[in-house]
């Protein structure tokens, strides 16, 4: 008599996949942020290396305690809006017309790219005041990284026909050599009241 047991209908599990997907996505949520690299700690016997950089190779980006932005290179200087920063930095790093007041260019042999005219001696010097709001500083860093990313993307498209993020590792390395990120952060000034 047990042989004639009714077959139980299976539990409808169609939505289990969706539920577990949601759980999965919950655990996959990643933290995001602007990645930067700090310079190595100074050696005790190290001389001040910034002394022998030519004036034309430096772009000063200064932020005062009120959060105002000052951009200065050999071409031009003055207070500026944050929206002007990205084009100024790009113009400075590229130095398309090889102007004498923008960073010097010299021939460099890069794998995959051959002989290139690069401004790899340029330095973007960011100086902050102790009172500068963090958000302003962050936005400036964001713009600087954006400027480099745009330049690298332009070069990647021109040379390899793809955006930088889709390049192979050795192609990325070549583009990085063409546009190295030289952002220097000086000790902040101590003036302007307590911290």
């Amino acid at each position, binding site marked *: 008599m047990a042989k004639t047991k009714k077959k139980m209908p299976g539990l409808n*599990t169609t939505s289990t996949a969706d539920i577990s997907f949601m759980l*999965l996505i919950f655990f996959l949520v*990643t933290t995001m942020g602007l*990645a*930067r690299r*700090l310079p190595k700690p100074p050696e005790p016997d190290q001389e001040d290396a910034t002394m022998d950089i030519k004036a034309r190779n430096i772009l000063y980006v200064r932020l005062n305690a009120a959060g105002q932005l000052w951009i200065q290179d050999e071409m031009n200087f003055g207070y500026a809006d944050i929206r002007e920063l990205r084009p100024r930095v790009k113009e400075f790093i590229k130095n398309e017309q090889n102007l004498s007041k923008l960073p010097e260019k010299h021939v460099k042999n890069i794998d995959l790219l051959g002989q290139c005219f690069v401004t790899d001696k340029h330095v973007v010097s960011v100086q902050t005041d*102790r009172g500068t709001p*963090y958000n302003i500083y962050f936005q400036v860093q*964001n713009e600087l990284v*954006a400027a480099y990313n745009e330049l690298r993307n332009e070069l990647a498209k021109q040379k390899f026909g793809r955006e930088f993020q889709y390049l192979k590792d050795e192609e990325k390395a070549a583009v990085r050599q063409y546009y190295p990120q030289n952002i220097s952060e000086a000790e902040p000034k101590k003036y302007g009241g307590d911290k």
Partner: protein
Amino acid sequence: MPEMNTSSLPDLIFTILFFFMMVTTMREVTLKVKFTIPAGTELEKLEKKSVVSFIYVGPPTDNLRAQMGSSTRIQLNDRYAEAREVMDFIAAERQGMTNQAEQVISIKADQQTQMGYITDIKEVLRKSWALRINYSATKRN
């Protein structure tokens, strides 16, 4: 056409889920500072959570304000700390890591924080050779 048999799909997804649950380290710190992190466009994901240590910077949370005041504080693990204590914190965080060279410090700081605090932290990070940092932010367009 017969429908594809998807009855094993939940099992597959569950397996992946368990995998991620195991590799993710849940933050068990209770926040003692409150902060609104800035928004940026050029962000990168923090891939390996196991090598990331967080430093929180901001004013004390509302319920602690009465005792602690409202000036900016640095939080390491579960307590308030001074910038110079970051060095010990880094060393302690490194203890359990197998690949210490990949250590990333993520700074979660309030937008209004004065740069002096951030710079102090950065100086100490430099001295402790924790050079890979990440300014935590949300995505904007």
